[in-house]
């Protein structure tokens, strides 16, 4: 099918050899690309129970048929692997010039396997692949690493790098690109580090495979114009994602002091208006005309690129109400290659542990200098406390025991994004059922459930809405692979995407229903992957894996206005979860039923899974 190169480049780090992996053409219809290809490759090739840091784990970079083309915000790439943070399927997307460069180099992705004996970086120029000694950049932050690579290979190349956090196997290390883009929250940077792979440089000179390039370009031009003429475009360009912070404050859904409270007394010091007032420039991914990265001069003179998630987690969640200081912490995390959401959550938990005399040293809410100190100790695993915090909140809770489980705000081990779901059951379900752990990428429903449902209710409409969004955001956009922001933030027509697929692939008949069936297939296979890994490792899989953070059930929300004292209820959440499973045709353990696997053409995968667990 057009729109694809039909193959992945395989980098064997142990042998320092490159080869090609040609995948079955039918995957282009059944999985589309990106996340779909990634989970299928991991399912087929990484043995059940594989240690995420072993040479048998594969790191998959995967683009899709629309990636890198001239259509709104298309230069995205998926990075996926078995997660060292959660033990299940992990992935993330990042905007990167490596996306179009890889497609022009003739590949639909890169598979990294094995483990190099010493730090290495890889340069890909079309079919020429070189493995280089990375001793000059190993130990450097992501900014200096990229600067080094730009000097050698030029600004137009695509770069994928890790910082010290990835090298030191921090379980929430990310992959970084283009001096500001990050992806792979569940430790994809650590998997890259475990393979002693510091960076990948990609340069391609071929053409984008497209069936009707002129038609696709025309459609893309219309898309760019629509984005630019959207009624809220100027406001978006002023504040980006941070415009949401004031809404979260109003609705008591801000993450404040480790998610214990829902509003923050200094919210106005870190909100979108303040960000807009202090903005010095705006940057974004290649092929994007609605750049979401808003840059300020931070308290130490760095240019720090902020968005809502890192402000929420490194600001209110640790009691820091000063944007330039938040900027410093964000810059440090970005440079080290730490996920900013998990970093903020780990710091929030550490502050609460200190309050309770468990941390072993003093760390108070709002302590800027100590926050800096801890971030460095985490990224370098400098000592016992830094190393424990580098393990993430789930393992911190296991180590400390007692009440610490309430301070660990995660699902399946992945720390929750910057939304306090204690009084919004639909959002709690979204976090609970996200395919990588508590991430907002697949479904964000707070505003919908307040406006169109009953906020306090656990009604089936909320499960339906979560699934609807998961199909679009987690299924369609993550497999195309292109950014959801033009649609979700500025109202770009969703129907445009199947049209793009038709023009690019040359296959007529793509429509949203068919795309959503692909999304269901991807979700079922990701869920099968989680269950397989848990059972293979002798761990227990149950519906409790889909429960949101314990705190949201057992602690009443503080500073939540009329929602003060509010919390989720286990029995009602179970009903909501049953609705979700019912709509998905999954059983009450949260495992797709045999007939559902069959509907989705996953009979072979179901048979493999049934060797480990009985299917209904």
């Amino acid at each position, binding site marked *: 099918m057009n729109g694809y190169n039909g193959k992945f480049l395989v980098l064997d780090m142990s042998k320092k050899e490159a080869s090609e992996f040609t995948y079955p053409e039918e995957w282009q219809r059944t999985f589309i690309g990106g996340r779909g290809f990634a989970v299928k490759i991991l399912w087929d090739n990484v043995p059940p129970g594989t240690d995420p840091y072993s040479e048998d784990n594969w790191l998959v970079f995967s683009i899709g048929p629309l990636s890198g083309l001239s259509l709104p915000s298309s230069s995205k790439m998926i990075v996926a692997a078995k997660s060292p943070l959660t033990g299940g399927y992990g992935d993330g997307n990042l905007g990167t010039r490596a996306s179009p460069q890889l497609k022009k180099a003739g590949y639909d992705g890169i598979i990294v396997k094995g483990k190099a004996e010493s730090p290495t970086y890889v340069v890909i120029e079309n079919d020429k692949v070189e493995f280089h000694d990375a001793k000059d950049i190993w130990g450097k932050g992501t900014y200096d690493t990229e600067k080094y690579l730009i000097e050698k290979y030029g600004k137009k190349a695509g770069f994928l790098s890790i910082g010290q956090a990835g090298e030191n196997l921090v379980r929430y290390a990310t992959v970084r690109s283009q001096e500001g883009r990050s992806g792979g929250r569940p430790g994809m940077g650590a998997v890259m580090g475990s393979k002693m792979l510091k960076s990948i440089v990609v340069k391609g000179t071929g053409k984008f495979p497209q069936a009707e390039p002129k038609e696709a370009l025309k459609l893309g031009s219309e898309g760019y114009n629509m984005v630019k003429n959207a*009624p809220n475009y100027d406001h978006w360009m002023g504040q980006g994602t941070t415009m949401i912070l004031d809404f979260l404050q109003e609705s008591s859904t801000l993450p404040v002091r480790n998610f214990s409270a829902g509003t923050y007394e200094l919210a106005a010091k870190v909100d979108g208006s303040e960000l807009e007032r202090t903005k010095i420039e705006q940057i974004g991914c290649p092929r994007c005309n609605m750049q979401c990265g808003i840059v300020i001069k931070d308290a130490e003179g760095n240019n720090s690129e902020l968005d809502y*998630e890192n402000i929420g987690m490194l600001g209110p969640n640790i009691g820091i109400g000063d944007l330039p200081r938040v900027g410093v912490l964000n810059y440090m995390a970005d440079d080290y290659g730490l996920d900013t959401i998990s970093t903020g959550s780990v710091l929030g938990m550490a502050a609460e542990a200190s309050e309770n005399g468990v941390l072993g040293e003093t760390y108070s809410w709002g302590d800027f200098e100590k926050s800096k100190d801890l971030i460095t100790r985490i990224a370098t695993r400098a000592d016992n406390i830094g190393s424990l915090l580098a393990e993430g909140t789930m393992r911190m809770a296991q180590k400390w025991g007692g009440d610490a489980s309430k301070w660990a705000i995660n699902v399946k081990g992945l720390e929750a994004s910057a939304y306090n779901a204690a009084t919004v059951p639909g959002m709690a379900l979204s976090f609970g059922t996200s395919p990588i752990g508590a991430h907002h990428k697949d479904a964000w429903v707070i505003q919908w459930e*307040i*406006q169109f449902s009953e906020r306090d209710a656990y009604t089936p409409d909320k499960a339906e809405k979560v699934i609807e969004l998961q199909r679009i955001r987690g299924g369609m956009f993550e497999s195309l692979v292109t950014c959801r922001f033009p*649609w979700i933030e500025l109202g770009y027509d969703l129907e445009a995407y199947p049209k793009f697929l038709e023009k690019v692939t040359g296959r007529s008949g793509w429509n949203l229903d068919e795309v959503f069936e692909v999304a269901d297939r991807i979700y079922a296979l990701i869920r099968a992957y989680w269950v397989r890994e848990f059972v293979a490792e002798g761990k227990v899989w149950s519906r409790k894996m889909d429960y949101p953070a314990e705190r949201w059930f057992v602690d009443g929300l503080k500073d939540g206005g009329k929602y003060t004292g509010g919390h989720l209820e286990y029995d009602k959440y179970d009903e909501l979860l049953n609705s979700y499973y019912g709509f998905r045709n999954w059983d009450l353990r949260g495992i797709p039923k045999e007939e559902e696997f069959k509907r989705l053409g996953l009979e072979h995968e179901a048979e493999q899974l049934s060797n480990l667990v009985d299917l209904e």
Partner: protein
Amino acid sequence: MVTIRLVSYLEKMAGFREKEIKIEEPTRVRDLIAFDLPDERLMVVVDDIGGDLDTVVDNDSRVVISPIFGGG
């Protein structure tokens, strides 16, 4: 008094964040708005219940008007 709370950039458009308006009879939200707001992509919540610009409010109502966000 009806309380109107404008969220995020709507504050800049209207020139206030929150204000109270005394009304003599039940009134549509739309008729309380003496400034230009975009008709589309707005969330209107009256006393914590979803509504729209045509929802009728009374004194003691709290109206929150917010842009629609995608949630990143």
